[in-house]
């Protein structure tokens, strides 16, 4: 949740995509009609305000080829596919909202952490998880369907053949190898080659490449498939206070990264905060 009051200034009937995006926003903050009266932290509009003075605008864009010019716009809001087309072509930050949140329990587990957990759990082998034809396998052995998240969370490489499994792997920050069409639809990084097995061999041999791919996959998930991350990004753009005051500091980010409760890094982070606040 964020402590924000977002106004809606949409006069024409809202499209399904816009309704979905606004619903995601309303799940995480207060969304009201502009005619209810301010103050507003931002106003979602589908067309420029057309006035000399207006509130900060988050401009909804459904067609990447038709981006209105609004001097009050601080960010663009778009469905994920349009947001991907807009990024890099406009000067404003782009926030993707629309589909409901998935894999909310997923945490980014980076390759080095994965290998340590695998060693601790006694999982030997290349640790390649594959989702092919609706079935998950681990180093060739068929898994139960409910083992998919576990495989995505611990595999050295995830090979996915559809959008759902690719997004699952990205949510757990796994290095995901997916066909070109799946990668383009989901916004994941494209593989270096069209041969998935060759790509798997390359990633198993190059830890750095695997780590870079893992980070990119997780980033793509946060940009296009995680409403919580998208709304948090919007809160950063609008410079808003966090909805839960106790989430300031490093505790929440360390929790999200899966840091053990007794890890020394928590003590170091707490000390750093204490030093910063005492100045």
């Amino acid at each position, binding site marked *: 949740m964020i402590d924000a009051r977002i106004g*809606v200034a949409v*006069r024409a009937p809202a499209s399904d995509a816009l309704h979905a995006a606004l*619903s995601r926003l309303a799940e995480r903050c207060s969304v009201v*009609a502009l005619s209810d009266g301010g103050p507003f932290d931002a106003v979602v509009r589908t067309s420029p305000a057309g006035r000399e003075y207006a509130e900060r605008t988050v401009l909804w864009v459904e067609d990447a080829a038709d981006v209105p010019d609004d001097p009050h716009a601080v960010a663009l809001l778009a469905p994920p596919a349009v947001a991907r087309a807009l990024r890099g072509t406009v000067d404003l930050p782009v926030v993707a909202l629309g589909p409901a949140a998935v894999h909310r329990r997923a945490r980014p587990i980076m390759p080095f952490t994965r290998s340590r957990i695998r060693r601790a*759990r006694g999982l030997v082998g290349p640790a390649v998880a594959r989702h092919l034809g609706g079935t998950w396998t681990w180093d060739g052995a068929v898994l139960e369907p409910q*083992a998919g998240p576990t495989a995505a969370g611990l595999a050295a490489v995830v090979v996915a053949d559809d959008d759902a499994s690719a997004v699952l792997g990205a949510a757990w920050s796994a290095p995901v190898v997916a066909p070109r069409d799946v990668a383009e639809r989901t916004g994941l990084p494209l593989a270096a080659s069209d041969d998935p097995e060759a790509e798997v061999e390359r990633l198993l041999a190059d830890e750095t490449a695997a780590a870079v791919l893992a980070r990119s996959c997780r980033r793509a998930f946060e940009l296009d498939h995680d409403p919580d991350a998208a709304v948090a990004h919007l809160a950063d753009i609008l410079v808003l206070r966090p909805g839960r005051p106790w989430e300031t500091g490093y505790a929440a980010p360390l929790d999200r990264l899966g840091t*053990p409760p007794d890890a020394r890094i928590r003590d170091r982070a707490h000390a750093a905060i204490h030093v910063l606040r005492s100045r």
Partner: protein
Amino acid sequence: MTLPAEISPEATSRLLPAPAAGSTPPPRADTRHAPAPAGVRTRAKHAAKAVLKPVYQRVMAPVTRSVDTLARRLEDVQQRLDHLEGRQAATAPARVDRALLSEQVQANTINQSLLKAEFGDVLRRFDDLGMAIAPATGIDGAATRLAEQREQLASLDRRLRLLDERVARLQAGGATAAEPTTPSTPVPAATPARASDVPGFDYVGFERRFRGDPDEVLRIQRERYVPLLADHGPVVDIGCGRGELLSALAEVGTEGIGVEPEPGMAAEARARGLRVEETDAVTFLRQCEPGSLGAIFSAHVVEHVELDYLLEFIHLASSRLRPGGLFVAETPNPASLVVLGNSYILDPTHVRPLHPSLMAFLCENAGFHDVRLNFYSPAESYHLPAVDHDLGEVASAVDSGFRRLNDVLFGAQEYTVVARVGEAPAA
């Protein structure tokens, strides 16, 4: 535990290969550290630990219990918060629908106001159109008015054909058709002359008593007519009196000519530096060049002349005004019965009351375009009171009846006909 359940040891065990029948399970990875070789320092450390451990356990037990309790409470609070957030999230689509609906209602309200304004503008233009076609009755009488004009055109057409036939007969050497005689206006019967020792009617004194405060009368005249006439010089003021209106027009730079038959008043007007012709309206207009005047104004003059004089006055006005010129005549409104039965008959010099429709008709017949009627000074002090419509249907009917009576009995006490000469056709 901060690690999610999906990578707990129980979940991870689903990834381990099932052991084959009769085979020994694969060895678990040994995570314990190999013991360090014992030395003096290590033995000292172990000894200190052995001594301190019970103390530590006694001290930390209650602290650990408190921490555990706090952790459980925090978890409870977190669960309740998650539950509340979940409920709020569940209502998100409904809240979005409500916000969108509010904005749609707001947009519809604005559109409705804009439509009302447009509709009002259309109605106003309809009224203007109606007044242009039928000044006395507005749009309601436009059909009748247009029918009259069609009949006039037909009549003109018949007269032209008759003239053509006469010309043809004359050219053929036929007998001249007898000229149809036009009916003349009836001549009033001769009245005996007034005796020489009886003074004439003191009109100045009569006006002073009955017409009201002269300054107020002049103020109203300036308010009504200076803006209308300012751009239509030269303005001829028929019956200009002492020239107050012409002086007001001169102040705004509009040239004026006064026509005043009364020598005393004409002299007073000339004393203001105004040009004044000491004659009557028709004589003056006959001498003017056609199309040389900007406007011809008269206030309470036309009801003092006979019909033939009035007809010639209006026709001369039409020909002496330039294209776009104005003919403005103010006169009492006999359609308001309080005027007809009171102020009109009070003045013995009034010749005939001139109904607004009649004046409009005469102007149109003389060739004026865009003839408008403006009504002033309703006799509000006589009005029957308004009845509150909220009292019911009977009250509404009574109020409607009173309004009609007010219009008929105590309506505008005077009106002005404003007629415009048409613009010259493009070459």
